[in-house]
């Protein structure tokens, strides 16, 4: 695993939420990523997966079966809770307010997408600042690149799937062009990283190069 900058084991964690952006190829990697999370995972996790707008609830059910934590669609005005995996509803942008509640918007598509990863990441970065982990996974678009830059500039941790290990490398590559990522690694390593940073004793004992 490549560790390019901040040493969060020294910082001792302090993370409160992780936002995940994933597009083409996500249906294969998301169950794998969520499957690695332990039952005591103490962060809120919010996912934008670009989907076809008429996608039904099947995807959420499938993720729920793969994961030890509750997986559900984010609802407007709902408070972002630790230990819950939220997905953006199809055809709505998902935003996080400063009071850490969700809101939805059906405004113009951003990067040809609604929900857009940038919209979630930019608002989450404002709400959580240095307490946020931003993760960009496989995808065939540029969505999320500007959002991850915001996460990083507000002091959060920027994690990108190693483009060589991604089914669709375009989105990780675009993110790496815009942001100096803290971690570039494959999906299993991202799972372990999140698990470690998000466990009850957040971040202690985490070493790079495992």
């Amino acid at each position: 695993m490549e560790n390019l900058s901040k040493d969060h084991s020294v910082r001792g964690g302090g993370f409160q939420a992780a936002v995940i952006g994933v597009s083409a190829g996500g249906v294969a990697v998301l169950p794998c990523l969520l499957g690695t999370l332990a039952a005591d995972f103490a962060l809120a996790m919010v996912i934008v997966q670009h989907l076809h707008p008429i996608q039904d609830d099947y995807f959420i059910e499938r993720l729920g079966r793969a994961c030890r934590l509750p997986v559900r669609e984010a609802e407007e005005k709902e408070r972002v809770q630790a230990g819950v995996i939220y997905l953006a509803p199809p055809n709505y942008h998902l935003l996080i307010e400063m009071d850490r509640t969700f809101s939805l918007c059906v405004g113009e598509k951003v990067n040809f997408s609604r929900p857009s990863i940038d919209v979630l990441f930019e608002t989450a970065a404002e709400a959580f600042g240095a307490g946020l982990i931003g993760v960009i996974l496989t995808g065939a678009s540029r969505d999320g690149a500007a959002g991850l830059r915001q996460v990083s500039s507000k002091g959060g941790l920027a994690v990108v799937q190693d483009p060589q290990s991604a089914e669709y490398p375009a989105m990780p590559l675009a993110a790496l062009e815009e942001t100096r990522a803290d971690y570039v690694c494959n999906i299993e390593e991202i799972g372990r990283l999140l698990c470690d940073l998000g466990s009850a004793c957040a971040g202690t004992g985490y070493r790079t190069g495992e």
Partner: protein
Amino acid sequence: MRAEQIEEIEIALLLDAIRKRYGYDFRNYARASLKRRLRSFAAQQDRMPLSRMIPAVLQDESFGARLIHGLSVTVSEMFRDPAFYAAIREQVIPYLKTYPFIRIWHAGCATGEEVYSLAIVLQEEGFYDRTTIFATDFNEQALDRAREAIYPLDAMKNFTSNYQRSGGRRAFSDYYRSGYDAAILDAGLKRNVTIANHNLVTDGVFSEVHLVLCRNVLIYFDQTLQNRALGLFNDSLVHGGILALGSKETLQYSRIAEDYKPLSSKWKIYQKTTA
């Protein structure tokens, strides 16, 4: 003071200027998306700083009008959520047909796509001539587009597919004619539609109605404003009247929840059970 805190002050002052100068009150809008719209408007104005917009809003009415338009979301499509329109056709209209004549309030109709979608369903169900639709929005520019009922031709493919999936009974092309890059809706669809300016934030009840549609408007409001708007709908609806919200909006946590029963939980269609 951090840059974010300064921006918060700028936004508060700007919203105050808009409210005092033009009467539009955005203070209780959900802040994150409002902020995004403000920033994207600023970007279109050569990255104009928010604090410089304040004198512009006060002194330049055309700037004020553009900003107010920029703060409202007018993205819409015909037969958005096709299954919602199927539920209206199958579950709501048979009930409404028990009335000799009904009034419908479509609140926050933006550019009118969903108003004419409803008109088509009513017409196909042989009920349109017994209805009046009040279509309202606070955005005058959007209302002008709704009055014209002319939409980009390249949107028709999506509208047609939505219409078919909603259980439409005809060829969608029966409802419009194309000219250049535009599709002009059949003028007959407008005949029972009254389009008027109404602001859910500041205006009151104007009529007794049997059906209220207000879809994807409440998501932009905070709890206080949501309760205000729902209060208006509640005061407008007759006993047994129907309230239809956007599929991600809910009555569940509102003050009026206990006076309504769900007709379709998935599509957020409710029936009023009190007088």
